[in-house]
Structure formats: structure tokens, C-alpha cells
């Protein structure tokens, strides 16, 4: 599908994608098809008649939407910039990225939103940057940030990510205030009383490695409390207030069970999981390099390992959990209790990672490996392609409510602005420092060969990423 006339940043004047596997989550349809894009818009979708031969290995889907990324600008430009982060997003097939406001200074004033948006525009990337504002002033958890002004400046929602809202009264006020604006509160569920000093998930790996454990109950407790606060806000809210609570990076099976219950009750609650919590597990901290679904009944239990233990790139918050938790997250995607897959892309400088495990800054650089981890789960039979795409495209849009500035199509129909990713399921790529567009090379997948090479990403009708091999 070489198209030499395509150049990054340019509008797609003519692109004919023939004999691809088209996934259209908006219309809940997938199958062999052809797609014609002209002047930045889809002009023809040609679903092949049934009974055609082997499924094509090139998949075309709507551009992915990441609800959770740290692009570090301002203040952490050595780790990532808005420009490098958006380039990483495009390489990963993402055409919209929500930016966490835990920068330095944090985005707690409308000027910060404006600055972020202008930096994104200046980057030249057609990938949409959607900044969140903070929930509290300075992310300190005391006073509410000026939410209405942040929303007016373009905030897509509110989060104090990395710093959970410990004070239930503040969470209550935030849900009410954001609810009046039609925006979501994106909460990082963690009971910090239980995680002080923690280095890894409390479990077998931490026991053997002598690492201080973060008990799964710390997440369960925080999720339970947030749901209780949400229930109260919903009960007392005036009709004009539509509170929305989104729990990000849920990682514990019992916490997801609480989410499932609250959704069944009808509460306005959504949640996301990260690709690393779906595919990896706490054995990775000890050097185990099997994926969660391959562990079966023989968890990592020390001794000779396939990689050196204590790789700081496996230190992340929430910590990599048990294989059973990862499988529960995968099941949650299929049964709909998980709404979205979000990367929690957290790039760090190597000097902030090249320290003893417990001192390493937590986080995994994840925008560029998300698709590959999901394909591994799909190939292993633990996830369907349709579910994965739905959670990368449709789910995130539902989460944000009025925070979505304009409608970008999550379906393929003649006339819609082209916003898509084309990737080859059958072709691998090597996760090397050179291959990554992010400045953050902090991923335990570095050095591996992964399935799913992204060939082309088109955002808002323009080329966002083009595989160098296709130039």
C-alpha cells in the first residue's frame, strides 16, 4: 500500500485502501473492504461480499483515542514534549490524546489550557491534544480549581491524576461542579494510607524480592469510596447537574467488581484499564517475561529468570498486579464493565529510572506499544479485535461527555473526515530506542519484537504517521 505522495502533516488528497480488514465500531461491523479517501474525507466504503478468501492482515480502524497520557510539558521537557508525545501517539495509531495536567506547574488555570493547546498547534501534528484541567488548585487536594474557566478554555475534563482526591468532601464538590459543566472527573483510585512506601504489588513477587507491597485493597477501598460519594452526589444533584465519574487505570479484579455493580445500579460511572495491566503482571518485576495469559497455574516464584529482576521500567502506579487480575481486566473489556483502554503513557528520563527499584519514578512509556500488547491478547484468544477497537475508539468518547470538542467519526461512512489507523497484524516491529518516537524509553518491552506494525495514521484528514518503509 505504498503511497509515495503522502507526507506527514499534509492533507490526504487521495488514498485508496484496497483489500483491508475494516473495523467499524460505530456501526458494529468488521470485514474485508476497500476504502477511498479524497481531500481528507472518506468518499467511498466498499464492503466486500461475503465468502471471500482469507482475511487480509492489514487492518483499518478509526483513529484511537487515549484518555490518559502524560506529555510532561511544561516543566518536564527532558522526559517528553507535547510535540514528541503527539508523534509517539501517531506512531501508536492514536489520533486524539487527553493530556494529564500534572505538569510543572500543573494545569490549574485557563492560561495553562491555552498554552497547551497552542503548543499542540505549534507542533504541526494533526493529532488532537485534549488537555484536562486539575481538580484542585496545585493538585494539592484542598481547594477546587476554577473549573468553569478551565472548561471555557478547552479542558476536556478534570483530574488530579497521580494524586488521588483523598478528601471525600472535595470529590463531592468536584463531581457536582464538573457535573454542572457536563464534564467528567477522571479519578486515580488509590487509598494512600495503604500505599505509603509501597514499591510493588503486594503478592508473591514482592514477597520474594523483598519489596514493600501495595495491597490490592488500597484500590478496592478507593473505588468503593468514590462510588459511595458518586451515589450521594447523584441523589442530591439538581436536574441540570449531570455528574460523571471516570476511574482511570483500574487494575484489581475486586475493584472492577465494584465498578460492575455500580454500573448495574445505573450510576454515571465509567472506567479504563491500561494495556500493561491487561498483558503484564507482577512477575515481570522479578524478571518473568511471560504474558498474563501464559502464566496459568505456575506464577513466577523466583530462581532463574528470563530477564534480570528489579527492572525499574516495570515500576508503575498502580503496580503491575497478579496474572489473575490481568485476566479479570480482559474479561471486563469483553463484558462491557471496562469502557476504555487508556495508555497512562508516562515517559521518564533514564536518570529518573536508573536508580534502585523503589526510588525509580513510576510509569511506563505506553503510547507506542498499546496496540501490540492488545494484539498479543487477541492472538492468545483473550480479547476480540472488535472489543479492543471499541475500547480504543467508542468507549473513550462516551467517557468525556460534553468534554469532546467536536465529533470525529467513530465509523466509516462517505463524507466523514478521515481519521484512521492502518496496521499490519501479521508484521512485527522491534521496540528499540530508535523506533520509539517518545523521548521515554522506559518500557519493559524494549528490545522485544512485537506484532502489529502501524503503517499509516491519518488524523483529521491529515497524515500523522507514515511507516518509513512506505515512503
Amino acid at each position: 500500500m505504498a503511497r509515495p505522495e503522502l507526507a506527514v502533516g499534509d492533507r490526504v488528497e487521495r488514498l485508496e485502501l484496497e483489500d483491508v480488514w475494516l473495523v467499524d465500531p460505530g456501526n458494529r461491523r468488521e470485514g474485508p473492504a476497500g476504502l477511498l479517501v479524497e481531500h481528507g474525507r472518506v468518499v467511498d466504503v466498499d464492503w466486500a461480499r461475503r465468502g471471500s478468501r482469507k482475511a487480509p492482515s492489514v487492518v483499518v480502524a478509526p483513529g484511537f483515542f487515549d484518555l490518559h497520557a502524560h506529555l510532561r510539558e511544561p516543566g518536564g521537557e527532558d522526559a517528553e514534549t507535547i510535540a514528541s508525545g503527539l508523534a509517539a501517539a501517531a506512531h501508536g495509531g492514536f489520533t486524539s490524546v487527553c493530556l494529564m495536567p500534572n505538569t510543572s506547574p500543573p494545569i490549574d488555570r485557563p492560561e495553562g489550557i491555552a498554552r497547551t493547546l497552542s503548543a499542540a498547534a505549534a507542533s504541526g501534528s494533526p493529532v488532537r491534544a485534549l488537555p484536562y484541567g486539575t481538580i484542585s488548585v496545585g493538585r494539592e487536594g484542598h481547594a477546587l480549581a476554577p473549573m468553569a474557566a478551565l472548561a471555557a478554555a478547552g479542558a476536556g475534563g478534570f483530574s488530579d491524576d497521580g494524586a488521588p482526591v483523598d478528601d471525600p468532601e472535595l470529590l463531592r464538590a468536584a463531581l457536582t461542579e464538573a457535573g454542572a459543566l457536563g464534564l467528567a472527573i477522571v479519578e486515580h483510585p488509590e487509598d494512600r494510607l495503604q500505599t505509603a512506601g509501597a514499591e510493588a504489588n503486594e503478592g508473591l513477587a514482592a514477597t520474594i524480592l523483598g519489596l514493600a507491597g501495595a495491597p490490592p485493597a488500597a484500590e478496592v477501598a478507593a473505588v468503593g469510596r468514590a462510588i459511595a460519594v458518586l451515589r450521594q452526589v447523584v441523589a442530591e444533584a439538581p436536574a441540570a447537574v449531570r455528574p460523571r465519574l471516570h476511574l482511570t487505570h483500574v487494575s484489581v479484579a475486586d475493584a472492577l467488581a465494584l465498578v460492575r455493580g455500580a454500573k448495574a445500579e445505573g450510576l454515571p460511572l465509567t472506567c479504563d484499564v491500561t494495556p500493561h495491566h491487561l498483558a503484564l503482571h507482577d512477575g515481570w518485576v522479578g524478571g518473568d517475561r511471560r504474558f498474563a495469559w501464559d502464566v496459568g497455574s505456575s506464577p513466577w516464584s523466583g530462581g532463574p529468570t528470563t530477564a534480570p529482576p528489579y527492572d525499574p521500567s516495570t515500576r508503575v502506579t498502580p503496580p503491575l498486579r497478579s496474572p489473575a487480575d490481568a485476566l479479570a481486566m480482559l474479561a471486563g473489556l469483553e463484558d462491557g464493565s471496562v469502557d476504555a483502554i487508556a495508555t497512562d503513557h508516562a515517559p521518564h528520563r533514564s536518570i529518573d529510572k536508573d536508580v534502585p527499584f523503589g526510588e525509580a519514578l513510576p510509569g511506563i512509556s505506553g503510547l507506542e506499544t498499546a496496540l501490540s500488547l492488545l494484539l498479543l491478547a487477541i492472538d492468545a484468544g483473550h480479547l476480540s479485535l472488535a472489543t479492543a477497537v471499541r475500547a480504543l475508539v467508542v468507549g473513550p468518547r462516551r467517557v468525556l461527555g460534553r468534554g469532546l470538542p467536536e465529533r470525529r467519526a467513530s465509523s466509516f461512512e462517505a463524507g466523514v473526515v478521515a481519521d484512521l489507523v492502518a496496521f499490519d497484524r501479521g508484521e512485527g516491529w522491534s521496540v528499540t530506542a530508535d523506533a520509539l518516537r517518545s523521548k521515554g524509553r522506559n518500557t519493559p518491552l524494549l528490545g522485544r519484537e512485537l506484532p502489529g506494525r502501524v503503517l499509516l495514521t491519518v488524523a483529521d484528514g491529515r497524515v500523522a504517521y507514515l511507516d518509513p518503509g512506505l515512503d
Partner: protein
Amino acid sequence: MTPAAGATGLADRVAWPNRHLLDVDDLSASQLEVVLEQAGAMAAARGAGTVPAALKGRGVTILFHEASTRTRVSFEIAARSLGADVVNVAVASSSVTKGESFADTLRTLEALGAHVLVLRHPRSGAAELAARHFGGHVINAGDGWHAHPTQALLDLATLRSVLPGERLRGAKVAIVGDVLHSRVARSNIWTLTAMGVDLWLTGPAGLLRGFEAWARALPSDRRLTITTELDLALRDASAVMALRVQRERLQGAGAPSEAAYAARYGLTEARLEACRPDVVVLHPGPLNEGVEIDPAVAAGPRSLVATQVATGVAVRMAVLSILCGCHGQA
């Protein structure tokens, strides 16, 4: 190959797995026998005044980010008696801040001629990190709660001295105390179960957290039993090892004070009656007499604490000579 190791011949027959000693989790019984034989040879050579200058011209740097006297001095004596040039670096743990400086420190020490780095660090995994930055041999002298390989090896050598040959296999050994925060306990789990010891861990439930799952995950040929009942752990034991307890860690662990701990888990002469008549008592030191161990026990005929200290030097000589004699696979 050093003269002493060459003399035993065992080191030639059993591959040493690594150029470092970071952990003991992957050492087999036959590899442990290599260390024991080499330690025996070193102890004999010390007694006869015929210690080989195996490390002559080699730099051994002892870098401790945590207070310690006995381990540091033991390594220093071991390295000096093998003819090494020893450099002692003490770092206040409060000055350990950025990895940049830790990695830089290691590179600097290497440039200054360190062939062997003996590292003590308050963080689990620090020795693993050091091995990524240091071109020579890294010996883990204790990292966080994780591992204390030479302590476990000297404990093993001490036990072997009273339970020679096959008598160690199947013998019951009990470790008593704050297992959760103990690198000594973790390393002893690997070495003693590898040698076929019937190992029991006991202490307040809050300080045994997670170890039941570890016991279940071990291969079936390794015997590890967890109990909060001291009497069960001591019954017919051939050896008992008391761990040092720290007051702040007893809070919330079912033994709110040192006195309460001593009443439940302190090793006394009366309690040792449950053991075999020839039971021996070990302690990695420093001792809290009257807390985890009664002064009469510590100073009594069953105590092997002094043997542990003396054996420690020979074991560390053995480790230094094995690592420097065999560069192995990186």
C-alpha cells in the same frame, strides 16, 4: 582458578553461574557445596598460615550505604588476607539521592581500580542495579529486605559444621522472628531448602505475611513450613536461628512491644527443651539480648554465634576467590 579452589577440583566440575554474587536464589546444592568446600579450604589455610594471595594486585572496594560493623569488617579481613588492596567507602544513606550519582560513584570506583565491589544498600535490588554499571564483580552484602548472600552462606557453613555431610539433609531448622523485613531469612530460604533442610519459619503473623504463598509456590522437593506457633517450629529442631527484631516493626504485627515479643517468641533455655537435645542456636547479629534471645542462650553452650562470625571470614574469602577465579558468563 585460585590454588585453593583448584585443589578441591569441585569448582572445575560445577559451573559457577555468574560473575557476581547478587542473590542465592539460583544456586544449586552442588554449587553451594563448592562454596562450602572452598570455605573449608580457606579456614584450614588461615589456621596453617598458608592463605594464597589469590587477590594480590586486585582492588576490593567495600561500599556501604547502611551502618554495619561486623559484615564490613568481615569482608575487609577476608579481602586483605587474600592480598587484595581494600578500599572502604562509607556513605550515609541520607546522601543517597539520585541514581546518577550512584551510577557515577560506581564508575568512579571502577576507574580507581576496583575489581570487586562489596555493596550494602537499604533498597532491595540495589546490587542488581550496581551490576549493570560496574564492570567488575559485585558482591551483594545486603540489599533492603531482599538478600544477604554471604550471611546465608556462612549460616550454611556453620550448620554444616555441626551437621556434617548428609546429616544436614532432612534436618529441621527453625527461623524465628521478623521474617517479613529480613534479607537474612529470604536468603536462607533459598540456600537451606536447596540443601534439603526441613525449614520452618515462625513469628508474629503480621511478620510472616506472604510467606505461606511462597512456601506453596516452591517446587515440591523444597520443604518450607510457616507457622505462628513457636512450639511447633521448635519441636525436634536441630537448629534455631533467631532474627533481630526492631521495635518499630513490631507495631501492628501482633506483638506490640519488645516485652510482648520476648514473652511469645524470645528464645529461652526452657523453650529450647522442645528441640533436639543437641540443638544449636544461630543469630545473624547484632543481638537484642532479652528480646529475641535470652542472654543465657546467647552465651550458652548451644550458641554458635561466635562460630558464625569466624566462619564468615572464611566464607567471604571463598566467595572472593571463586568470583575472581572464574569470570563466567556475564
